[in-house]
């Protein structure tokens, strides 16, 4: 079990309010991802749940139990840190067994759980090494191992993959998702990488300056961003946001159209512009189109085999049914 409920939680450091009153419910077994720009309070929120920081006011309940005054160890949560925070002088085995040892578990039970975790995480060969003798990905797995042996009510991850290279990150992303499918334990995962958020999350919580901007499944956020901030934050490359006469045509202050919802053609279309930089990914090509009279630059997606050169004049047609409309305050219009 691991249902986490935050009610009117606030956090200030001295005079600075980092988290204004915030309500959030994380359901049991859910994979929840906190995303948001740097400094928006993601780590702080996670540390409040973990108990590493005290809430300034409000309440945190885990499985119905009020936790504001319960020390971190007693909350039944396990955390994986960005720096892994392994104990450098202990072997992998001792690292993983440390929480069990602290819980005064019997030797056999400790060994059994460590072996089991090591098997799940492909660490069996490395049990007698020290963290210093492991690669980044292996260290990450040890940190996860140390978390899973405790059989916590929920896992907390603070940007666990940000120290890994791109290829390893994709691999570990998959492994963590598989782990979640197997364990079915609540996981709260902080990242500022929105690809991680989209691919792993059951639900995404988008934060800005301590506020929750929107909570929803990845596709809800993609299809129905509640405001301009979420619209601009979710999706890669970013949604094109256009103001002025073009937006007025659609009775909006701002319209948003994703690069993949614009048709590109050499001959005809609603808008026209000049190709600037093209990014060829093989499967897709992204063109940055200038001189459209709409915005500084409009990004469009085309198939990988579409070829235009720098300086070519091309024509763009947005799919109006996929257009998002926002009012002057940045709120979505129905």
């Amino acid at each position, binding site marked *: 079990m691991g249902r986490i409920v935050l009610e009117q939680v606030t956090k200030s450091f001295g005079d600075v309010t980092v988290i204004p009153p915030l309500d959030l419910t994380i359901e049991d077994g859910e994979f929840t991802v906190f995303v948001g720009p740097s400094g928006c309070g993601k780590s702080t929120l996670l540390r409040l749940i973990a108990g590493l920081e005290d809430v300034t006011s409000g309440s945190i309940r885990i499985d119905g139990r009020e936790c504001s005054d319960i020390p*971190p160890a007693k909350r039944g949560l396990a*955390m994986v840190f960005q720096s892994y*925070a392994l*104990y450098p*002088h202990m072997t992998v085995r001792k690292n993983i067994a440390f*929480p069990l040892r*602290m*819980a005064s578990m019997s030797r056999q039970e400790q060994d059994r759980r460590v072996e089991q975790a090591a098997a799940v995480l492909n660490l069996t060969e490395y049990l007698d090494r020290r963290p210093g003798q492991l690669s980044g990905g292996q260290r990450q797995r040890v940190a996860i191992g140390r978390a899973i042996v405790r059989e916590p009510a929920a896992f907390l991850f603070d940007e666990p993959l940000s120290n890994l290279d791109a290829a390893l990150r994709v691999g570990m992303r998959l492994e963590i998702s598989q782990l979640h499918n197997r364990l079915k334990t609540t996981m709260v995962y902080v990242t500022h990488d929105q690809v991680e958020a989209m691919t792993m999350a059951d639900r995404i919580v988008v934060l800005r300056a301590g506020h929750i901007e929107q909570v929803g499944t990845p596709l809800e956020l993609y299809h129905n961003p509640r405001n301009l901030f979420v619209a601009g934050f979710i999706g890669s490359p970013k949604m094109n946001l256009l103001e002025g006469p073009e937006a007025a045509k659609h009775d909006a202050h701002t319209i948003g159209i994703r690069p993949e919802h614009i048709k590109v053609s050499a001959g005809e279309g609603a808008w026209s512009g000049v190709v600037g930089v093209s990014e060829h990914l093989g499967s897709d090509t992204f063109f940055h189109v200038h001189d459209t009279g709409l915005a500084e630059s409009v990004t469009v997606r085309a198939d990988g085999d579409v070829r235009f050169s720098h300086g070519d004049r091309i024509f763009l047609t947005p799919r109006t049914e996929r257009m998002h409309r926002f009012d002057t305050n940045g709120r979505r219009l129905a």
Partner: protein
Amino acid sequence: MSTKASRSAARLMLAPAVILLLAWMLVPLTMTLIFSFQRFLPLRGGFQGWVGFENYARFVGSSAFWPAVQTTVLIVGGVLLITVVLGILLALLLDQPMWGQGIVRILVIAPFFVMPTVTGLVWKNMFMDPNNGLLAHLWRFFGGDPVVWLSDVPVFSIILIVSWQWLPFATLILLTAIQSLDSEQLEAAEMDGAPVLSRFWHIILPHLSRAITIVILIQTIFLLAIFAKIFVTTQGSFGTRTLTYLIYQRVLESQNVGLGSAGGIYAVILANIFALFLMRIVGKNLDR
């Protein structure tokens, strides 16, 4: 430095320093070694012939030798124990955020800047003097009989004085080590259910092991040679005669350079055995 050219250039650049260091070390050592095989009495005609290992046998055979070794080990061990234990506690304390941190840190470090001779005299005359010392006043204030520190508990007194001087050194090194500990490690241990004492024992202490090694090694080297504080306090009486002090007495008081030199060589050997022994125990920590 990986290419052949840069390696040989590096050697060339290092050469003067290495040669200077070697000369610095080797010349006195060789002279001591040569003297130790001679009967050499400066006031009675100087060189009086080669005597082989006689000086060595006499130095060890003298009734003062083993007590001196014991005293040395006792003083060095006692000071190490006090400075390391108190140093860790002080470092932990100074690491806590508190008001006036900067000034407190400077105050803690201050004793290290006082010259050893001055330290000895200040302690002898201002603290430990049985009539007018601060400690005597303190004892009397609580209705006790003042302790005659330097003759009743002379070895302990010297350990106390030396520890006072070396505590800042230990504290400083241990403090920087504590500050270099990744706070996420402590937080991870906290989440793993380790209470304060376990966190100290399993995380902080192992992290400090390297710094503790360095403190012990450096202090040992200096402590084996403490002289000034003994000279100005007890003059080696009341069982405070260390090996260094014994050598001093042999050379200057008995004017026997040969015998003193043999003692010097023993001291070098002792120090090396000690250093090797320490490196062995804690070497694993150093080359990690």
